[in-house]
């Protein structure tokens, strides 16, 4: 393991993407479980649990993309054209979803249209993110510093599987978030949904995990040969522990623990992907160091990141703390 600027930056980008998944995952999930609301009051409530924070959550996506552009421009230049369609679709979906937060309060007659825009946007964005992940894991063809594959290389049974897994996983995050933030009837209903979604998520994570090592010989050796497998054994063990924590917490009626356990599923899966990937940036051919910008760029950007990222985490945490606790159904500024 080489501890240099490019390595640090790879870690920071991975961190930004993970924070994005953790934060925007649950608010996209709200959109995916939106159809389970029984009436307009419940929909308003669900929306208002994330209204003050969704904007900050989504900014981590810009940091993930912008950071990649800043410090791994070659990876950015290869990945974006390769994932042209899923990325474009995701952006359009995020447009629909993002504006519905404000628009649905500004109209009565069209409110149901923006509700559907919120559902559809969240669903398509999650699906595209999962497909993009799957397409990246299965490898991207590179020649002469550019993408060299076809227009539908991203579309395979494996990427559809990962897309589906992300949709279900985000729905789980959304449902457990609502368990944490709401009370009464909707809270109880979301507990039920969480159980089903939790089982589905774990099954899908299992299927994806079993399929991944067979995509690339490198992944296979990483997982099934010593000394790597000693480390990689930790991943399923951690996952089992989290699953136990998740189901017992739900059974005991805990409010926060199911959400945190569900976030844990994502963190551990993310670590699993990291074990498969390292030191690749764009598998199978671009390593972190080949994709990195010159050191002068990495160093300059790192100064800002080291100062500003802790600051951002601090005031993001503060914003969450301001809006902590169960949501008051009479709240909102509209």
């Amino acid at each position, binding site marked *: 393991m080489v501890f240099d600027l490019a390595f640090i930056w790879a870690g920071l980008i991975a961190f930004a993407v993970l924070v994005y998944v953790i934060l925007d995952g649950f608010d996209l999930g709200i959109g995916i479980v939106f159809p389970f609301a029984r009436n307009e*009051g419940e929909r*308003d409530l669900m929306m*208002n649990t994330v209204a*003050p924070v969704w*904007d*900050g959550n*989504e*900014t981590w996506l*810009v*940091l993930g993309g*912008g*950071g990649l*552009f*800043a*410090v791994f*421009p*070659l990876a*950015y*230049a*290869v990945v*974006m*054209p390769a994932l042209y369609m899923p990325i*474009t679709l995701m952006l*359009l979906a*995020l*447009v*629909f979803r*993002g*504006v519905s*937060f*404000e*628009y649905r309060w*500004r*109209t*009565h*007659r069209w*409110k149901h249209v923006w509700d559907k825009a919120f559902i559809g946007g969240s669903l398509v964005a999650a699906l595209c993110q999962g497909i993009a992940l799957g397409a990246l894991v299965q490898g991207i063809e590179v020649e002469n510093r*550019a*993408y060299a594959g076809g227009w539908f290389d991203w579309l395979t049974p494996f990427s559809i599987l990962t897309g589906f897994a992300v949709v279900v996983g985000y729905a789980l995050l959304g449902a457990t978030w609502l368990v944490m933030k709401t009370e009464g009837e909707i809270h109880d209903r979301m507990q039920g949904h969480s159980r089903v979604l939790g089982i589905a998520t774990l099954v899908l994570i299992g299927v994806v995990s079993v399929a991944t090592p067979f995509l690339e010989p490198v992944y296979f050796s990483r997982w099934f040969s010593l000394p790597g497998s000693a480390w990689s054994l930790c991943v399923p063990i951690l996952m089992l522990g989290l699953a136990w924590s998740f189901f017992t917490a739900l059974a005991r009626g805990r409010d926060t623990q199911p959400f945190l356990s569900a976030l844990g599923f994502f963190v551990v899966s993310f670590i699993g992907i990291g074990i498969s990937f390292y030191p690749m940036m764009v598998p199978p051919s671009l390593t972190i160091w080949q994709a990195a*910008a*010159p050191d*002068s*760029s990495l160093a*300059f*950007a790192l100064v*800002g*990141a080291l100062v500003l*990222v802790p600051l*951002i985490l601090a*005031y*993001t945490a503060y*914003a969450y703390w*301001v*809006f902590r606790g169960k949501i008051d*159904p*009479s*709240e*909102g*500024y*509209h």
Partner: protein
Amino acid sequence: MIESYGAETLARIQFAFTVSFHIIFPAFSIGLASYLAVLNALWMRTRDETYLHLFKYWKKIFAVAFGMGVVSGIVMSYQFGTNWSVFSDKAGPVIGPLMAYEVLSAFFLEAGFLGIMLFGRERVGERLHMFATAMVAFGTLMSATWILSVNSWMQTPAGYSINADGQFVPEDWWQIIFNPSFPYRLVHMVLAAYLTTAFVVGAVGALHMLRDRGDKRARRMFSLAMWMALIVTPIQIFAGDAHGLNTLEHQPAKVMAMEGHYDSHPDGAPLILFGIPNSETRTVDYAIEIPKLSSLILKHHWEAPLDGLDTIPLEDQPPVAIVFWSFRVMVGLGFAMLAVGLWSGLQRWRGHLFDDTWLHRIVLVMGPTGFVAVLAGWITTEVGRQPFTVYGLLRTSESLAPVDAPAVAASLIAFIVVYFFIFGAGTFYILRLMNQPTVTKDRELDEGPVRAAGITPGFQAEHGSGKG
């Protein structure tokens, strides 16, 4: 039919389309965020309820505009990769870190404090709420600073070297950030954003005064807006002139296109007021011109020689007609704003600011002019940079991603359909909010500073048809 265009043309149309849509919202939200911070500060200082009511009135409009700005901005940040990946690979090491700084220092600040600004007055107390409002305003200005640094570097690159892979390698970050055209561009853009907002706010004030001359909230917003117009417009014209001289120094071909100077003028160039640039004959047809004035403006001397596009190789020239016209639109609107500002100053001095209905009508009509001027200005500077993405160094045709035309065409059509639907609706909602009376019957406004969270969702559901 659209497939007959090349991928480059389509990608350029797509970029122009999405960036033009996007720029509208920052132009508005930069000014509006500062306006909201000022209103909130004035309320805290004077305890004059008019300021609090104005804050709440414009806060809702800001929220809708900001939402549109966010989503259209996310699209922009990814388009560099999808359509202009070669540009991303080559220029990424220089402009990527600047954009990362924009995200780290501006986007997070705006997004992190926006929730508190919109929802948190009663949760965090007045002082922290004021702090959050100020942070949102500061964030918008930081964002403008970084993005204009990026744009300026693409216009007047400095502080780089080029490596074996053809990448721009940063050598001196000070020179990169403070590149030669950056200060002029930043000042010109921020003032433009303030003027844009002032004319929107002024128009809304005028609208409500035309309906009810005694509306004191409408009077207050109109008065503040007209102060802005009176004071800032002359400064903006001065800043624009300085920016023009800077452009002449670093991007002479752009100024030649703006001025319509196909030919060199060794003994003083005329100022072409109007005319139709003809790219076939390379002349400006039906030109109305004032002899020697262009030399006087650009060189501060009647007889100063000015080079024309005939000194620039044809393949390095920007398209003349677009730049020529967009520049005239921008300047024309600038002088119209100056006239309105002076008129309002005169009426204020004579004590007739609130009863000159013709002034109110004109200001109402002038409401959208800031947006048009901003768009025209960006078209002038961006089209004037062609045929390069990084001026003089990297051609637009060499910046393109390895994309097929049908893929770009399909996404272009999708963007056009989605944008017209989404932003059409958003504009409609904003206009409807502006059309609402400033003296609102909402419970929140009458309950004063303690209960500021707004009408509740339940109340909204019951009374939704009244509002929407």
